[in-house]
C-alpha cells in the first residue's frame, strides 16, 4: 500500500495450501499480550500480533468530557483508535481521518454490548487504542488490547471480547490475514466475538464471497476468536494469578 513503484502481485497460496509466510489456512500469526505496561492509565495492555504492535489504555469510569454527552442512566464509552504517523509504510498525517473515526465507532459499539455501563451512571469510560506498527488486522489487535485493558482497569463486563479477521486468499478462506493477503486477497472480514454468548459484536466485510464461503469464514473466524480468547485469559492470569510467586506491584500511588 502506498509504495513508490508498481509492485507485482505475489502468489498468496502454494499448491500445498501454505500461505505467503508458510502458515496453514487456519493458523494465527504469532501473538503476545502484556497486561498493565502503563503506569498512568487505569488499565492497559500491549499486543504484538504478527507485525502489528498495538497499545491500549483505559481511563475511568471518570467525569464526562464534553459534558453534554453525559447520560444519567449509564456510563458512556468513548473509544479512540489512532495510528502513529510512523506505523505504516507511507507516513500517515497525525490526527483522526475518516477511517480511524469509523473504526473508533464500531469498536465503541462492540464494547457497549459487554460492559455493564448501567453500574456507572453519569461517567465516561475512555478507551484509547494506539497503533504503533501496522500490518493488517490492527482493529482486531486493538479490540483485543482494549478488552485486556478494560479488564486490567477492573471494569465489570459480561465477557472479554475476542477478535480476529478472516478473509479469502488465493480462492480459499484463511484466518488472520497479513498485509499482502489483505491487499491482494479477494476478501477481508474482521470479527469480534463474545465467546460466552457466541455472538458477534463487530462484523465488517469487504470483497467477494459466496454464501458457502461466508459460512466457512464465520466458522473459521469464531474458532480463531476462541483461540485468541484463551490467550487473553492466559495474559490476565499471568498478571493477576495470586497463586504464583509474583510480588504485588503498584502499592504506592
Amino acid at each position, binding site marked *: 500500500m502506498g*509504495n*513508490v*513503484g508498481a509492485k507485482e502481485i505475489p502468489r498468496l497460496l502454494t499448491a500445498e495450501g501454505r500461505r505467503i509466510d508458510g502458515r496453514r489456512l487456519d493458523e494465527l500469526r504469532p501473538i503476545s499480550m502484556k497486561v498493565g*505496561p*502503563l*503506569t*498512568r*492509565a487505569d488499565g492497559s495492555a500491549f499486543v504484538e500480533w504478527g*507485525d502489528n*504492535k498495538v*497499545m*491500549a*489504555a483505559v*481511563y475511568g469510569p*471518570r467525569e464526562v*468530557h464534553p459534558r453534554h454527552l453525559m447520560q444519567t442512566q449509564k456510563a458512556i464509552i468513548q473509544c*479512540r483508535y*489512532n495510528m*502513529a*504517523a*510512523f*506505523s*505504516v*509504510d*507511507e*507516513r500517515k498525517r*497525525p*490526527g*483522526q481521518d475518516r477511517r480511524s473515526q469509523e473504526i473508533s465507532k464500531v469498536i465503541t459499539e462492540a464494547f457497549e454490548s459487554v460492559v455493564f455501563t448501567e453500574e456507572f451512571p453519569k461517567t465516561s469510560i*475512555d478507551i*484509547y*487504542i*494506539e497503533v*504503533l*506498527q*501496522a*500490518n493488517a488486522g490492527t482493529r482486531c489487535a486493538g479490540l483485543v488490547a482494549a478488552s485486556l485493558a478494560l479488564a486490567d482497569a477492573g471494569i465489570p463486563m459480561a465477557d472479554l471480547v475476542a477478535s480476529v479477521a478472516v478473509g479469502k486468499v488465493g480462492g480459499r478462506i484463511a484466518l488472520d490475514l497479513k498485509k499482502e493477503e489483505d491487499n491482494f486477497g479477494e476478501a477481508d472480514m474482521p470479527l469480534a466475538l463474545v465467546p460466552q454468548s457466541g455472538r458477534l459484536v463487530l462484523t465488517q466485510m469487504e470483497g467477494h464471497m459466496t454464501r458457502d464461503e461466508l459460512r466457512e469464514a464465520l466458522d473459521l473466524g469464531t474458532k480463531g476468536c476462541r483461540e485468541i480468547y484463551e490467550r487473553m485469559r492466559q495474559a490476565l492470569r499471568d498478571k493477576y494469578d495470586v497463586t504464583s510467586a509474583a510480588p504485588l506491584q503498584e502499592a504506592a*500511588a
Partner: protein
Amino acid sequence: MSEAVAAEIQTTHIIDLARTGHRLDGRGIDEWRPVTVEPGFVKSADGSAMVHIGDTAVLCGVKLEIGKPFPDTPNAGVLTTNAELIALSSPTFEPGPPQPEAIELSRVVDRSIRAAETIDLTKLCVSPSEKCWTCYVDIHCLDHSGNLIDAAQLAALGALTHSTVPAKRFEVGEHDYPLEVSHFPIECTFVRLGDKIVADPTFEEETAGQGRLTVATDETGHLVAMQKGKVGAFSPDEIIETVERAFRHGDRLRNIVRGA
C-alpha cells in the same frame, strides 16, 4: 478529584523533603531514574527508538520521504519534529488538536536537534530547488510519569541515530544507506523544589515544581539550547550551575544512545 487533593498534599511534602535533600522515590537531588533506549522498535519506520526514563515511556519514529526544498533553502532537506501528547499517556491529556504543552515539547526537542546540527540538512538535498529528503521525526508519548522533554529528545536522537535513508524505495539511489548523524545533543531537565533544583523530575515533582529548566548540550562541549518553563524563576548563578550539571549528565546519556 482525588488526584487533585492528593497533589496538593504531595506538593507540600515533596518540597519539604527536597529541603532535606531527599525525594519521594528515594533518589538524590542530582540522580536520574534508570534510562533505557531501545532502537528499531517499529519496523514500519525508517528509524525508531523506545525510551524509558523510569516509568515514563516515549516512542519516536523517523520517516524519510522525497519532497521539495523550501524556496529560501534550495540546497537543504527538511526536518520536521512533531510530538503528540496522546490521551493514552496521561489522565490529564485530551484527544484533539495539539495543546500548547505538546507544541512546546515539539519545539524544544526540535530546537536541540536543529541547533546542534544533528543532521547536516545539505546532505538531504537530492537536486537543488527540486528534490530533497523530508525527515519527519514523530514523537509518541505513551506513559507520562514526568520529564517527557528529556525522554522525547532521547527518543528522537535515538531514532535518528538508527535511521536508514530509503533511497531504493524512492528510486533516487541503488541502495538504502544509514542516515548520517553529525552531532549528539542531549537535553536535561531540572525543576526547582524550594531551594533545591532536582534532575529528571517525576510527574509529581513537575506538578510541585516552581520553575523548570531544560538545557541541551552537545558532545563538543557547547550549550545548544535552553528553555525555562512553568511558573517560577532562576538566578543567573543557578542557571550556570544547572548547565554544568547538564553537561555531566549529557555525557552519560550520550553514551547510552550511541551504545544502544
